[in-house]
């Protein structure tokens, strides 16, 4: 029998159903993997006792014939989701000791369907970052880093902000993990670690109980090792939630059913604006390969134009910080989390927020405060919103000519910790292909497509029409089959 931690979710469900192993056995194997993977620093909080308790309950349900769609599957939860009575940090010092008295809707849905929680995984502080190097709880190491674990000559970043989720899934520590994606935080780390990640349409997953970064862009999604697993997990995560006014009341399709392998006649848009200057040849090459795969499966590539793409990153780095500056105002030391006393209210605020927020978060709060200030609002925030509208139009028009869009997920593969760190703009450029999707609220998926010259995974991105995740799963399945991505990282738990 294959190692339990190497199973896909689909196979694990089969094994559980056929009584090849129990949820407790599956969970125990993963709990051991969590321990073994500690050098990756993927977890902020491990919850082995809770995991085993949930696994026992799962076995009991299965014995009674009441198993849910994800029953017994051990997963990791990005530490941005509030989990009842379990430390929830957003990887920030400011939430020091915070244990919510409530459970996020997305994780509630997962537990309802039987999933088992292994723990809370690391991320960039408040999900702000593209390399998982801004966490108060330390950097996450990409399991693809070459060399001996714990003695890596060159530590690679797992991408971000869902870096802990990506590292845990890639290193076979969890069968899947929740991620959140505000500008690429699911798709880019998925690409950097050779796994699948989907950011569904804005409104698919409830944001209730997810620590907010930029409310109009934040969206939760699954990170798994296969397209099918993402379909299984997304189905459990999403659904209408009256507690989130931006949640959309639409039926949840059985995404797995969409993975038919048949994409004949499908029109695949190839946006010319995504051929950016200085993009490595291997990315270009992989993109070309992707087009060939889809053509071979009977789809038709269509050249499309998304003319406002070049303004997307600038608009994003106005809208997201603006919302974050307001969303993070609640971390003031008054009611929960960190408080550093002062001689006046203002001094307490300054001491608390100065000590509680890291450099990147402070930078974005400052940018956001600036762009919303009287006299600058029109020039920055309002202008950025106009750009956002244009970007939506671009996609609307493109989708008249095509059914799905194919692009690279990121302009490079994983880089080393320490690289691109001096210049925040260089870091922001990582999100150039993913950000427009968030601005337009569309679904986007990253699928591992192959290894680059340095042996590191590269991902292809599919962008779909609003609420047409099914096409992403269908096309993603075809790419997955064609790419035959079977490589495993040097570090596997």
């Amino acid at each position, binding site marked *: 029998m294959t190692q339990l931690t190497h199973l896909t979710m689909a196979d694990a469900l089969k094994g559980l159903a056929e009584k090849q192993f129990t949820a407790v056995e599956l969970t125990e194997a993963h709990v051991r993997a969590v321990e073994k993977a500690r050098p990756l620093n993927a977890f902020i909080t491990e919850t082995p006792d809770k995991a085993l308790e949930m696994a026992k309950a799962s076995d009991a349900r299965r014995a009674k014939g009441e198993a849910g769609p994800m029953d017994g599957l051990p997963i990791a939860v990005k530490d941005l*989701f*509030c989990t009842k009575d379990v430390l*929830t940090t*957003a990887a920030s010092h400011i*939430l020091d000791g*915070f244990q*919510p*008295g*409530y459970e*996020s809707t997305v994780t509630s849905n997962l537990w309802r369907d039987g999933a088992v929680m292994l723990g809370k995984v690391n991320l960039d502080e408040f999900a702000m970052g593209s390399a998982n190097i801004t966490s108060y709880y330390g950097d996450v190491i990409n399991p693809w880093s070459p060399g001996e674990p714990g003695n890596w000559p060159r530590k690679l970043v797992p991408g971000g902000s869902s870096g802990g989720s990506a590292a845990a899934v890639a290193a076979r520590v969890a069968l899947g993990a929740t991620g959140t994606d505000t500008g690429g935080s699911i798709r880019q780390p998925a690409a950097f670690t050779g796994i699948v990640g989907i950011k569904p349409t804005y409104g698919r997953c409830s*944001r*209730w*109980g*997810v*620590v*907010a970064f*930029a*409310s*109009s862009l934040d969206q939760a999604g699954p990170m798994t090792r296969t397209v099918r697993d993402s379909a299984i997990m997304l189905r459990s995560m999403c659904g209408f939630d*009256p*507690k*989130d*006014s*931006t949640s959309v009341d639409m039926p949840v399709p059985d995404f797995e059913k969409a993975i038919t392998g048949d994409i004949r006649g499908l029109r695949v848009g190839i946006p010319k604006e995504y051929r950016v200057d200085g993009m490595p040849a291997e990315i270009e090459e992989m993109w070309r390969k992707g087009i060939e795969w889809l053509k071979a499966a009977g789809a038709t590539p269509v050249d499309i134009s998304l003319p406002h793409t070049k303004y997307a990153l600038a608009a994003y780095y106005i809208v997201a910080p*603006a*919302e974050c*500056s*307001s969303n*993070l*105002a*609640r971390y*003031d030391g*008054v*009611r*929960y989390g960190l408080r550093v006393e002062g001689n006046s*209210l*203002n001094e307490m*605020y300054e001491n608390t927020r100065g000590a509680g927020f890291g450099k990147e978060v402070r930078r974005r709060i400052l940018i956001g*405060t600036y762009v*919303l*200030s*009287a006299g600058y*609002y029109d020039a920055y*925030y309002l202008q950025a919103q106009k750009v956002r509208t244009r970007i939506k139009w671009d996609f609307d028009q493109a989708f008249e000519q095509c059914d799905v869009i194919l692009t690279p997920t990121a302009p490079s593969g994983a880089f080393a910790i320490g690289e691109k760190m001096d210049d925040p703009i260089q870091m922001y450029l990582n999100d150039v292909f993913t950000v427009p999707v968030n601005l337009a609220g569309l679904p986007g998926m990253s699928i591992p497509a192959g290894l680059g010259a340095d042996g590191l995974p590269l991902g292809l991105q599919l962008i779909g029409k609003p609420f047409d995740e099914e096409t992403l799963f269908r096309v993603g399945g075809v790419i997955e089959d064609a790419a035959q991505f079977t490589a495993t990282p040097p570090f596997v738990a």
Partner: protein
Amino acid sequence: MTYIQGETGDWEVVIGLEVHAQIVSNAKLFSGSATAFGTAPNSQVSFVDAAFPGMLPVINAFCVEQAVRTGLGLKAQINNYSVFDRKNYFYADLPQGYQISQYLQPIVGKGELVLDLPDGSTRTVGITRLHMEQDAGKSLHDQHPSKTYIDLNRSGVALMEIVSEPDLRSAEEAGAYVRKLRSILRYLGTCDGNMEEGSMRCDCNVSVRKPGQPFGTRCEIKNVNSIRFVMAAIEYEARRQVEVLEEGGTIVQETRLWDTTKLVTRSMRSKEEAHDYRYFPDPDLLPLELDPEWVEEIKRTLPELPDEKKARFMTDFKLSAYDANVLVNEKAKADYFETVAKGRDPKLAANWVTGDLFGALNKAGLEIEQSPVKAGDLGGLIDLIADNTISGRIAKDVFAIMFETPGKTPADIVAEKGLKQVTDTGAIEGAIDQILAANADKVEEYRSGKDKLFGFFVGQAMKATQGKANPALVNEILQKKLNG
């Protein structure tokens, strides 16, 4: 026009008011928490109200309905598309670090309000807008020597901010405005108007100018919590500004506080220190879109409001503007009056209600709802006058007894005390004959031209019948016997 007399001539006061009215609703604007007044601190606080991580606002549809109802009551434009914005500032009792409000696109646009002035005249004042917003919590600075305590019970409670045009020209008009607005809100049932409980608070924008000149620089007096204080604060502030200007100074645009013990306004912060609220649309909430049919439905179920009621009372009951005003300013008073007036002489009913009843209630410190005399019984009393069972004079005594002994009907009292009017001509004649016989000298004087003595005979006759004789009959018989 009321002007302030300054050293350099007349000054006109220009006032605009922003009234914050708490919406009558069991739950808060964006959470299900209760809104009852006077409960233990922090006993009505949800995770949303305390701004815990990941908590999201969900609009309370009933609060929206109340705001629309209020807009309709102010004859205002209802905006079927409105937007919630965040007003960002830090304060310990503002858990989110922002207040959800409406900035550029409020739910209600331009409307109007008719002032009823003491001389019976009216004046129409423009309403600029009405928007919905959340209240903040309360800071308690007096519970600990160095710490401030926070009570979040009010955090998230739904408010309407109702903004007037700068159309008011005196403290009295400002008082009349707040009184009228409160009356309309109470009629609509959208705000209880209890200023002492903080259900209604007022920011007063005040400036002065020489008549005919452009608007002067204004100061805003924040959070005034009674009509008396609104008037006093405006009066003080206007005179302060006149004084500054006449001494050659300039008015600095600033926010001021009303000191309720020293009865002065004090500078709170200048324009330079003013907050930059960094308003932007709240991304947690979708724009609010109203179905015009739903708005129509609310309009159809609107109650009769004070202005319409007043007009009806003046037309149907031929009441004076003054009486009508007094009766309609509270719905309970108007309802009471209508019950009394139904099928009776309206003028008589109005006199009894506004005169005897309101006087007695006022003296006893009672509200109309607490009146010991029920409307039906007061009507019964008037019926007894109308059918000559008792005289108006006796009725006053009966009313006093009714007020003291709630539950007793006027008929019972009249029967018990034997107050029934004597209309038996023979009995009255007999009494008068005795009086004339006993006062022959006075009869002589009267007949020789001392007309004034007629009153004396009337008095004697009433006295002889313990006031129960029908005064008209007494008059008639005396006339006949003395002059006949």
